[in-house]
């Protein structure tokens, strides 16, 4: 069954933009606590540009929409989040190239995205980065029936709570060492909104 169409993908990006705008201050606040304080601003700007871009182009495939999104994020977000999210969407796009996106293709694309984040960020699981959330989501999709995609958000939330008490060892938050404890990683939080938006649009009910 096709789970993600061009229309879904465009709506996915719009739903992400909506959430990034809505939670801009929260993300920035999280980032001020353990980073350099621009995550909300960067993510809101980045996805605003993505939506502006994809609404002006006619696409032939889901792969092309995601490629557009990836290139825009890389060019407009900056810092470490731009390359990380850019890589994730680019790897998804590559995995979907020439294919219709059924459950199997989507799960493979998620796996490739996670591998891409892993390679790009050089972070391991449990280092309090957005990789933790993406890895858990990919593992969940591999194990569970697709009809259970609502459960995906619980997995994200649980991961974020689990990592709250961790000491960051990668990224800017790692400079703070022990002081990063007790704070939510801003990248994990923005990743949550990306998956929340996905669950909103993806065709998992039929």
């Amino acid at each position, binding site marked *: 069954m096709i789970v993600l169409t061009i229309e879904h993908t465009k709506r996915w990006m719009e739903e992400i933009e909506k959430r990034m705008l809505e939670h801009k201050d929260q993300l920035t606040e999280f980032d001020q606590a353990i980073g350099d304080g621009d995550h909300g601003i960067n993510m809101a700007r980045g996805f605003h540009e993505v939506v502006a871009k994809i609404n002006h182009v006619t696409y032939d495939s889901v792969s092309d929409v995601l490629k557009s999104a990836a290139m825009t994020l*890389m*060019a407009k977000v*900056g810092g470490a989040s731009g*390359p990380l999210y850019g890589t994730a969407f680019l790897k998804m796009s590559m995995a979907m190239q020439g294919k219709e996106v059924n459950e199997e293709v989507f799960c493979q694309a998620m796996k490739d995205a996670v591998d891409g984040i892993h390679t790009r960020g050089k972070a391991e699981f449990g280092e309090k980065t957005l990789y933790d959330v993406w890895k858990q989501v990919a593992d969940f999709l591999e194990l569970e029936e697709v009809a259970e995609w609502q459960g995906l958000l619980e997995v994200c939330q649980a991961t974020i709570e689990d990592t709250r008490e961790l000491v960051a060892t990668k*990224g800017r938050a790692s400079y703070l060492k022990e002081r990063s404890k007790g704070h939510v990683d801003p990248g994990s939080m923005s990743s949550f909104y990306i998956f929340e938006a996905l669950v909103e649009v993806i065709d998992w009910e039929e």
Partner: protein
Amino acid sequence: MKKVINNAEHVVDQMLDGLVSAHPDELKRLPDTTVIIRKDAPIKGKVGIVSGGGSGHEPAHAGFVGRGMLDAAVAGEVFTSPTPDQILEAIKAVDGGAGVLLVIKNYTGDVMNFEMAQEMAEMEGIQVASVVVNDDVAVEDSTFTIGRRGIAGTVFVHKVAGAKAEAGATLEEVKAVANQTIASVRSMGVALSSCTLPAAGKPSFTLAENEMEIGIGIHGEPGIERVALVSADEITTILLNKILAEIDEESSDVAVMVNGLGSTPEMELHIVNKKVAEVLRDKGMNVYRTWVGEYMTSLDMAGFSITILSLNEGLMELLVEDVKTVAFHV
């Protein structure tokens, strides 16, 4: 905040245009980018050297574009890595068929953005290699940090790699000599006052009237400790001791760079260098060449860094090869 700017959003754009206006015969800005290239690039058969990073470190990096040094410099927003699309444009513009070497300062964002650009260029069939400079001895290399930061020592890497490429070496050879330089160069800085980002409008941190921060980063990141200000000779000794502990004692020939961070008068930099020369002489080391001035600044920060490069014959030759850039002279 008092700054000579028009609009904080346009500082990088307007600076780059001003730079090219001052050097129209040597430099060119790629249209619709923040990339400055040698006017005669690409040079057929020569390895292209591309560097760059956040703005606010002027004359780095565009000041080092020219014959015998960089072929292109990519400017990011102030203290923010340039994005892969911009770096890719630079790579494409300077590839003369022999490949391109990227010289990256070791910051998470810079490394990721340059690596992405490298992969994108390779997908387009351009041969690309990269090296990461990590000369700052202030930040320890451990599992709890991303490793040492790249600071003023990067300028020596630009010079050596640029000279090697100009001499017609292969990409592999240029990369090897760049890595040899990275392994032999160590730096450390001190701040007497903070810096103010145009967009932020207020200082990044504050130092009391009688305070200095040892081991400061070039974006105002924390150093090792905040202590009472002491004399130029004493500060110099503190920095040099830490740097020399990381330098191979076998090598007696060294190059020196005393680099101002933005608001320290040349007079004070030369006072520092007097002490550097004395300490090195007392240790039986031979100062082959010295550069004193501003090379890798941190906006309007007061303070300086010292860089020591231990030399072998090959590096000596490359270091003094002819060069024609805005900001680096031999």
